[in-house]
């Protein structure tokens, strides 16, 4: 069995590859990434290729290999705002994803696991508590820069139903993934000695430990039937409580000031993505009913609080 992992240099992909190798010693994994592939987990049967995400490169890849399963874990960061990067990101998200899906269909793969995010729902003032998988994806209404993640998700969803009988497709929308190996904005935000905290709002968060997420990715290939699944623990915490657990000192400011502060930081390219600031105002809690129905109530090893506690183990 040969597996293609797109975005293999990421911390999450690295944990997944280790889980795959320990559970299926004979497995063949090809990891591709446009970032450097040095200092990654190596073992017999695991190969990495550093390549640009272009149509030609992907066509070559699918021409020379016969994949059973494809993990699409690649996503470009939202922290840069220059026009060229936005264009590149949109190109990768919309055209790149469409090309990959087209090649998956043509090459006759059996499983596709697509990692989306709960950011597609958006942090809006009128979010109901526990958003289900059927909820509209409203993130880009408020933040057009999130159009890529919403488009990628919707492309995959449409493709999933189109190929329903032929290819098993699992679309995952996890909450905030944190841990010592993933290098994302939320992990950095929570693991610093001091971080901005809202004085005038009290949003709630769900956190997912990187190990749990990697384990769900592995189990998606084996156990989950075609469908869309939110991934989150049962518990949730307020940001104040999260800071207490991670021992981060909160710098309390009104959120209107955070927008001004972020504008200032934008000038020196140290800003947070605007959409993340909206998460400091309004909660975006997702339901985990769909995945629980398949994997059972204890499908995660770490609760939100455990995941936060583990962030300091770096």
């Amino acid at each position, binding site marked *: 069995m040969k597996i293609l992992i797109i975005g293999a240099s990421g911390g999450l992909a690295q944990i997944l590859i280790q889980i795959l190798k320990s559970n299926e010693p004979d497995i063949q994994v090809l990891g591709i990434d446009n970032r450097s592939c040095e200092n990654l987990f190596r073992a017999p049967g695991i190969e990495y290729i550093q390549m640009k995400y272009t149509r030609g490169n992907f066509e070559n890849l699918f021409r020379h290999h016969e994949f059973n399963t494809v993990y699409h874990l690649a996503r470009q960061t939202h922290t840069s705002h220059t026009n060229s990067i936005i264009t590149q990101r949109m190109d990768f998200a919309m055209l790149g994803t469409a090309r990959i899906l087209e090649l998956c269909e043509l090459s006759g793969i059996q499983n596709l696991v697509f990692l989306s995010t709960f950011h597609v729902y958006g942090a809006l003032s009128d979010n*109901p*508590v526990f958003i289900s998988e059927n909820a509209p994806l409203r993130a880009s209404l408020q933040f057009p820069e999130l159009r890529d993640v919403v488009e990628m998700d919707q492309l995959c969803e449409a493709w999933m139903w189109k190929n329903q009988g032929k290819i098993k497709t699992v679309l995952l929308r996890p909450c905030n993934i944190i841990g010592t190996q993933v290098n994302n904005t939320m992990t950095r935000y929570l693991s610093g000695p001091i971080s901005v905290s809202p004085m005038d709002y*009290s949003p709630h968060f769900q956190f997912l430990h990187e190990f749990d997420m990697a384990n769900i990715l592995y189990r998606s290939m084996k156990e989950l039937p075609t469908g869309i699944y939110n991934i989150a623990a049962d518990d949730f915490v*307020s940001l104040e409580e999260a800071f207490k657990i991670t021992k981060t000192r909160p710098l309390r400011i009104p959120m209107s000031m955070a927008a001004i502060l972020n504008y200032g930081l934008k000038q020196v390219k140290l800003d947070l993505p605007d959409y993340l600031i909206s998460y400091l105002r309004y909660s975006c809690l997702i339901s985990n009913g769909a995945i629980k129905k398949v994997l059972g109530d204890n499908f995660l090893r770490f609760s939100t609080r455990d995941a936060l506690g583990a962030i300091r183990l770096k």
Partner: protein
Amino acid sequence: MLALSNTDKKKIERIIRTMKKEYPEGTDPWGLNLELAEKTLKFLTPLYRSYFKVRLIGAEKIQNKSYVVISNHSGQIPIDAILISMAFLLDVESTHLIRPMVEKFMATLPFINKYASALGAVLGDRQNAHYLLERKQSILVFPEGVKGITKNSPDFYKVQDFTQGFYRMAATHQTAILPLAVIGAEEMYPFVIHASGLGKWMGLPSLPLSLNLLPLPSPIDIYIGDEFTPSDKENEKSIQHNVFLIEQQIKKMILLGLAKRRPFFDFIRKPISHFIIKEFRKKKP
């Protein structure tokens, strides 16, 4: 004068202790925060007792179970929701937390959003209501919506048409509906005109123009009506009929309450109110 009495202090501490058994983490997904709720209750209770002098009439009708509480909406700002919630906590034998369903606009307001949620307020969304009723919690709904709270002085205590969502929710979850009427909240802002056009232009649900900025100490009476449990075989006709009956019950309680209303600067308020009503009717026959 506005100090927290020892009895109330002990009562609030007992309420929070009881609630901690239900919410061991001290919080819930809608933003309830027992630590902040205790502080807020201790701050607001003297205002509840001595400023608004709230009376809960018919408290003995409230049982220790889940309700869809229905009320008329009044007072320009949603103080009525806070006072009803406090009455159910402070003046009912069993600890009864009711969750007011608030307007979407409220959820966007800094600080207000935080403190209202800490006290139990929840965004008025059907999915939220369903989750809460599933968990056997009580919710407080104002079926008049924003129209109820954005009335000009001449329209005070005129109950606007009820929406039917609350009834359908109660029927789905087989939860009793408890109607109540709030008297006195309209007089907190006795002279109000709504600049609807300007409000819309500013993106606000309403823009009340009032002579006073802070609410006046109008005494508040909350009348509890008779509970009504919808059957599990409701149809469109029966829903319409029963919502009408509940609306009538609230209207009756308002008339009764107005007849027994405690005086509040009547010597000055009444002549001005009559003048405004006369002038308003001249313009809008």
